[in-house]
């Protein structure tokens, strides 16, 4: 992989954000709205629920972490959709870039887009609701890594669909994360799910991430094996995502969609 090419491709998206104030505003707006919404719900549950008794901000922390996942996935999809909308697809695929370099550039730039939106929201939550995700301590870094890997994996799978089936796959891009949210046990413990769904849910990294988040905030203990499990599962999905992306790319070349995808 050549870094100057990865940087070049990232630069295209950085310029796009930098040139457009509405885009920056849009990136910041939704995570901040989430913080306000879940902040008030969180306050209500803190005083009204025995499960959350004396544990301020579990729900808000979950909301922020979920938003991190959501933003990283959507950022990935958005960058790919931008190429389709601007009809720049052919230019991109005739440039001497490897697929691995495209994946690397999108992965790196997605974190940039995600943080633009999330950092203000995280900072707003501290004075407004007295909730800081930094209370999770060092494990927060690893939980974010697991979330990010899984987020970009979802992005990768959706972009693979866009590559193979064209812009008609766009709706799936927006809906992709909502498919998994109920099984992710973001706001509730896994025991709430029926037994059969619990088995499926354990195959997702989300359950391990959010269970561990609650464990740290409520029980004040850290279960390292859960964190490792969440990262490993995310990596497995990521590898699968890369394979699917390559298969879609070769499928698109066979089908001829790379040359007219924006039309």
């Amino acid at each position, binding site marked *: 992989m*050549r870094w*100057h*090419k990865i*940087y*070049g*491709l990232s*630069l*295209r998206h950085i*310029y*796009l954000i930098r*040139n*457009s104030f509405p885009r920056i505003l849009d990136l910041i707006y939704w995570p901040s709205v989430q913080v306000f919404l879940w902040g008030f719900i969180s306050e209500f549950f803190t005083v009204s629920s025995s499960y959350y008794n004396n544990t301020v901000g579990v729900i808000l922390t979950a909301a922020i972490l979920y938003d991190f996942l959501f933003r990283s996935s959507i950022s990935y999809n958005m960058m790919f959709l*931008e*190429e389709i909308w*601007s*009809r*720049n*697809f*052919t*230019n991109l*695929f*005739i*440039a*001497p*870039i*490897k697929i691995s370099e495209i994946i690397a550039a999108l992965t790196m730039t997605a974190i940039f887009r995600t943080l633009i939106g999330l950092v203000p929201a995280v900072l707003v939550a501290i004075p407004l609701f007295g909730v800081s995700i930094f209370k999770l301590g060092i494990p927060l870094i690893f939980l974010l890594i697991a979330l990010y890997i899984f987020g970009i994996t979802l992005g990768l799978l959706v972009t693979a669909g866009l590559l193979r089936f064209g812009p008609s796959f766009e709706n799936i891009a927006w809906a992709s994360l909502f498919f998994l949210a109920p099984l992710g046990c973001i706001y509730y413990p896994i025991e709430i799910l029926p037994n059969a769904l619990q088995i499926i849910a354990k195959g997702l990294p989300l359950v391990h991430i959010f269970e561990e988040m609650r464990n740290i905030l409520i029980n004040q203990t850290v279960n390292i094996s859960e964190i490792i499990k969440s990262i490993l599962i995310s990596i497995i999905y990521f590898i699968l995502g890369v394979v699917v992306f390559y298969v879609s790319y*070769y499928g698109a*070349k*066979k*089908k*001829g969609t*790379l*040359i*007219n995808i*924006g*039309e």
Partner: protein
Amino acid sequence: MNIKVQNLTKKFNNYLAVNNINFTLEKSKTLGLLGPNGCGKTTSIGMMLGLITPSSGVVLIDNQNVDSTNRNDLLSRMNFASPYIELPKKLTVRQNLEVYGRLYGVKDLKNRITEISEDLNLNNFLNKNTGELSSGQKNRVSLAKSLINKPDILFLDEPTASLDPDIGDFVREYIETYKSKNKITILLASHNMKEVERLCDTIIMMKEGQIVDRGTCKDIISRHGRDNLEDTFLKIARSKNEMA
């Protein structure tokens, strides 16, 4: 660099888009690819650029298969311009040239951008968003992008489509001068017969996925008993298939 197209065929489900075409484009020569809409020109160019996998046959660039592991090395010495593909509209012209310069690994990029901007008169709108430009300006920016890496092979798909005669002439003049100065190999797909006559050394006529005639403009015109390439094109396009 030269291009050899050998027994190239592309079938999309039951539709035969390109049917067993063969030709060679010698180094520093310009070949015109002509034919009515839907005759397989874009699909052929797509296969030559490695964007479409052929059903059978090969495209050899300097004797290397364009679909080989060397694809990126080959692509770094090629480029493509077409009015049907665009550059990101929200990026300025300079930013687009910078991004593509980096993707093509252009050395001394700043100077290259200055040089090509002067050559193609882009300086007045270099810092303007690409989406805000007129079609003539966009067309020149697209040409600048396609020359940013000083390619050895340039693919041009209707480079002067939708341009007014003045700008169209400027672009043709520029391509002509650039070609003679840089000894570049060009494959030009166009519906503008005067442009083809002016720029191409040889031409290939395609119809329904097949090559139906080939040669110099003069040869083809006289072979079909017409006065100009436009009439010859019409005769071939409206006749039943004749294999070259």
